[in-house]
């Protein structure tokens, strides 16, 4: 795992030359293929059959994994502990939700051709200005990236320009997501208030309640995760990635050798927020609802726990952490719902004490031990 001389390749294709990325993509696509085959080709009732519910669940985990990758990009490589990434995830989710609401059309409970049900219920006469355009898929999908990106740009510009870092930045990111949660709870905001947006019918003409659409969304989320991973990997293996690590470890020093640290922080923060938004947009059609609880500070802290459990600054560790914790959560909340938070807390304490570098740290430790075992043998030959 020693750092090598940097290659002369084009930055976006550079990750494909790495062993770790190849392994990650291999495992991810094998898993996508396996689930698809087990879902489609194995008959129902067979013990190996994966049902539509489980496919949907896995799709949800994958969108969480993409969110965790986004958090690891800023936390692991740039040292910015964002406790508000749930906000970007939720905004991406709301952008998708607004599109899905507009797709319902006359099939809503009140049958209004344009207004979503909750607006009719609130006796609104016309669509608020910010709901216009969301009937067009291209516009809504652009907003999935642009809305969280813009928020991150404004927030990050103010924070990084004033050199707010460390625990203070964590606190204001937490405040950001809390403030947004309170705002989105209000009916006057026009985002469905407490209930959020739900009762979705179709996405790009595909019925959201059909098994085929669920499988499609699962695969699309897997592909988005792969692309997001490659993008992040391309960033962290570029010279810019090394500037980020330098900023994380010695910010003042990085500034002295001539880098505009605050601009680098802003750039990476915005990229991360957009990826989180994309994750949210893929999450919403799979769970069928988006409401202000996604803005809750607790959720943002949970994301950080996934990354810590999986192992910081590896990206694949974030994916492992997100999937493991959420799988455990599904199992646990099924068996003993009240004990989940205790289990999560215990898990976090154990990992911090026993595996400070997370699961990814354990993996690379085992790999090194294996390599060390090989060495003496080769020397003997």
């Amino acid at each position: 795992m020693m750092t090598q001389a940097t290659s002369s390749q084009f930055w976006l294709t550079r990750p494909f030359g790495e062993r770790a990325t190849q392994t990650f993509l291999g495992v991810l696509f094998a898993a996508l293929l396996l689930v698809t085959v087990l879902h489609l080709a194995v008959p129902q009732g067979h013990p190996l059959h994966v049902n539509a519910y489980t496919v949907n669940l896995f799709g949800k985990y994958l969108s969480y994994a993409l969110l965790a990758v986004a958090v690891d990009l800023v936390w692991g490589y740039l040292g910015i502990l964002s406790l508000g990434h749930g906000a970007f995830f939720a905004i991406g989710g709301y952008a998708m939700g607004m599109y899905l609401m507009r797709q319902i059309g006359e099939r809503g409970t009140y049958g209004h051709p344009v207004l979503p049900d909750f607006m009719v219920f609130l006796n609104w006469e016309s669509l608020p200005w910010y709901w216009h355009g969301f009937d067009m898929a291209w516009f809504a999908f652009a907003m999935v990236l642009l809305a969280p990106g813009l928020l991150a740009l404004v927030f990050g510009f103010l924070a990084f320009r004033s050199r707010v870092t460390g625990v203070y930045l964590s606190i204001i990111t937490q405040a950001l997501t809390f403030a947004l949660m309170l705002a989105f709870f209000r009916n006057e905001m026009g985002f469905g208030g407490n209930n959020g947006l739900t009762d979705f019918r179709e996405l790009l003409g595909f019925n959201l309640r059909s098994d085929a659409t669920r499988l499609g969304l699962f695969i699309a989320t897997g592909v988005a995760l792969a692309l997001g991973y490659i993008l992040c990997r391309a960033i962290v293996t570029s010279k810019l990635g090394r500037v980020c690590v330098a900023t994380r470890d010695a910010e003042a020093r990085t500034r002295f050798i001539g880098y505009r640290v605050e601009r680098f922080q802003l750039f990476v923060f915005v990229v991360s927020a957009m990826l989180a938004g994309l994750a949210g947009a893929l999450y919403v059609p799979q769970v069928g609802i988006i409401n202000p609880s996604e803005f809750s500070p607790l959720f943002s802290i949970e994301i950080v726990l996934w990354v810590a459990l999986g192992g910081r600054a590896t990206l694949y560790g974030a994916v492992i952490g997100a999937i493991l914790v959420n799988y455990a959560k599904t199992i646990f909340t099924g068996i003993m719902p009240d004990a989940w938070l205790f289990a999560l807390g215990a898990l976090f304490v154990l990992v911090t004490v026993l595996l400070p570098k997370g699961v990814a740290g354990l993996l690379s430790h085992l790999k090194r031990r294996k390599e060390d075992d090989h060495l003496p043998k080769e020397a003997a030959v």
Partner: protein
Amino acid sequence: MSLLQSLKARDRVFEFMAPEASPVDVRHGPILYMEDVTVSFDGFKAINNLNLTIDDGELRCIIGPNGAGKTTMMDIITGKTRPTEGSVWFGSRHNLLHMNEPEIASLGIGRKFQKPTVFEALSVFENLELAMAADKRIFPTLTARMTGEIKDRIDDVLETIGLTALRFQPAGILSHGQKQWLEIGMLLMQRPRLLLVDEPVAGMTEQEMERTAELLTGLAGKQSVVVVEHDMGFVRSIARKVTVLHQGSVLAEGSMDQVSNDPKVVEVYLGSDEEESA
């Protein structure tokens, strides 16, 4: 006539069109002027009416007892601290008080901190790569590729600082002395015009000190170097001209022999030093 002909000459490049080797104007000699600079922190004057001029290519040592304002002086030059009064010019064109830290760094002022700060998670090679003079905006940095030319330059600097064998090791495992050299190497990668070096030999062994002295004297001439140091033996071994700071202003200036015989200097600095050692 000659003027007309020179205007007609096709191979002539007008001065204002020629790419400048360095934007710093040192035609008048000095590369750094500090005039009547005062810095006060809540009424305490860390720098008091300081006047200092460094010539282009000079190696200058600055000595002074603790609290004389040596580090604050470096902070002012690099833009970290703003003086309350006075002016600071780099060459005769650039007013450093109107620039921020990255701008000053890219203009060609490099600083080595008292405590060596290198990027510990990155390799020695990568440390030098980041420090290299290059387009340091976001997208050029993102798409930057490693070329043979850059590699050669990094290899040259690795050779100069004697860390070639450790190039792919993380900088975190280097010894204290090696970190200091790596930091000097990082400064060299920036091709600075003026190098500010803060206590380069603190905590070094005798041998490491000798190597550092060689390194710094080798740099002078190509770059202007300002060294702040406590170790009088070391200063004596490298200095051509010494400035003594005391309570934020210049007490004496001259060769090492001149200043060490100056009664004022002996009183505030060398004298008390000898008493301590006696």
